[in-house]
């Protein structure tokens, strides 16, 4: 029995701010950020958009691509994010209600920096395989925080992706294997009550992102007895353009296999949505039989890797909802003051 993705969908708010606009305010050299991070612009949520609204829009798109799934057949829904609107009150319950899936299902918010949703995909795969549920939904969505003036402000973006996990004929992408890699690493954190995360600067690279993304991917290759040559596409978590490019090179993946799912230059880092929106962009163009390797990364730190094989069902299902490219192109540029208003940077009292 094939187990994997039966529907996928994304959502990206339409507002954008360019690197130059942010750099102008702080007196930074825009070119060094543009070239250093490999980023041109990032998405910004409107005043009335947050992780819950983004998750609902992405999940509705995912359900459009899974027309055979009846709401009553969805037994689990998880929302992975580091910007849940409430500290206590689950985003997942709001999303399940908005999709008409309630009350007979289990739901929870998951948290593991930027990999909270890939872990939830694993949970859904497990429950489907065990026969506990027929379908499960995992959503990664964020309105990412980055302190003003911090390097993170150039990349912290808003967006999300949703995946309906199930078995049988409707599977558009079979998950052949998954492997995870986790260690306690203090590279990036946000304490309770803090508005913005702190990060350990250069420390976020070698012992954090690269150690986990590369080791996890190697672990998956070893477990499945495959090599980079066996995959047509590779998608990594993308906090900037440089990190995934360097990881791909080190692992021996041709850069061409990374490009279709590498969107950070135009989207920014959507945290929990990052690698999963990248995967969606690959599913938008992939052909039946092609293989995709996906590795997420969450600070703190861990990675989840997936070996995915696209099935013939992709051709009829992908055209049922908007592709990632549509959301990247449907945009409206704002200046820094409008951005500051949307991100509620002004204190009124």
């Amino acid at each position, binding site marked *: 029995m094939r187990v994997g993705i039966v529907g996928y969908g994304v959502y990206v708010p*339409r507002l954008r701010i360019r690197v130059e606009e942010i750099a102008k305010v702080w007196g930074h050299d825009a070119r060094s950020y543009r070239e250093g991070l490999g980023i041109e612009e990032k998405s910004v949520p*409107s*005043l*009335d*958009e*947050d992780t*819950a*609204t983004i998750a*609902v*829009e992405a999940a*509705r798109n995912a359900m459009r691509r899974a027309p055979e799934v009846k709401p009553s057949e969805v037994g689990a829904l998880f929302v992975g994010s580091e910007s849940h*609107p*409430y500290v206590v009150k689950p985003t997942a319950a*709001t999303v399940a*209600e*908005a999709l*008409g899936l309630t009350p007979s299902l289990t739901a929870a918010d998951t948290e593991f920096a930027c990999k909270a949703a890939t872990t939830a995909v694993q949970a859904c795969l497990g429950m489907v395989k065990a026969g506990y549920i027929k379908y499960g939904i995992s959503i990664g969505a964020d309105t990412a925080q980055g302190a003003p003036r911090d390097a993170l402000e150039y990349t912290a973006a808003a967006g999300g992706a949703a995946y309906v996990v199930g078995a049988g004929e409707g599977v558009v992408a079979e998950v052949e294997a998954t492997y995870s890699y986790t260690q306690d690493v203090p590279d990036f954190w946000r304490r309770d009550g803090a508005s913005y995360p702190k990060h350990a600067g250069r420390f976020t690279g070698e012992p954090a992102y690269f150690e986990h993304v590369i080791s996890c991917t190697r672990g998956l290759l070893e477990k499945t007895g495959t090599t980079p040559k066996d995959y047509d596409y590779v998608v990594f978590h993308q906090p900037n353009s440089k990190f995934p490019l360097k990881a791909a090179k080190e692992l021996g993946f041709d850069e*061409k296999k990374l490009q279709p799912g590498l969107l950070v230059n135009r989207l920014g880092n959507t945290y929990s949505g990052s690698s999963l929106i990248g995967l969606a962009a690959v599913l*938008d*163009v992939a052909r039946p039989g092609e293989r995709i390797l996906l590795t997420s990364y969450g600070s703190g730190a861990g990675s989840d890797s997936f070996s995915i094989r696209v099935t013939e069902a992709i051709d009829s299902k*992908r*055209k049922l909802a*908007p*592709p990632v*490219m*549509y959301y990247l*192109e*449907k945009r409206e540029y704002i200046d820094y003051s409008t951005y500051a*208003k949307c991100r509620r940077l002004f204190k009124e009292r």
Partner: protein
Amino acid sequence: MSVSGVPRHWRSLRERYRLLGTYCENCKTSFFPPRKICPKCRRKGRTREVEFSGRGRVFSYTVIHVGSKTFEEYTPYIIGLIELQEGPRVLSQIVDCKPEDVHIGMMVEACFRKLFEQEDGGIISYGFKFRPVDDSWAEYYDRLLADRAMVEKT
């Protein structure tokens, strides 16, 4: 809305999240907000819950330049009277649209947004708003596949 508004928020939450209304099998009329009995047929009415498609057109609109305290950060914003495909008219904010671009007859679709937040860490109310219909996304697939064929050639 204060904390005392929480019960009201909760009672109408499903219809706001999913645009749920009432359909009367007897007179074949749809209603929003939901009705316990059909206002036309009264005791002869046979009502059931219906989830609307979310598609409709702008029947009329106004642009708010001076909003109440809860909404003043959104100004100028559009309030539209939306006529749903199924018939009922719904009052809603129209988003992802500039005040100069809205017009009567414009096709709109429901989206899921934050409606307002109670002060001082109170509850967040979510629900439908409307945005202009944009079906142009279907054309992107032709472009994507053409791009792909180009890459494969080179």
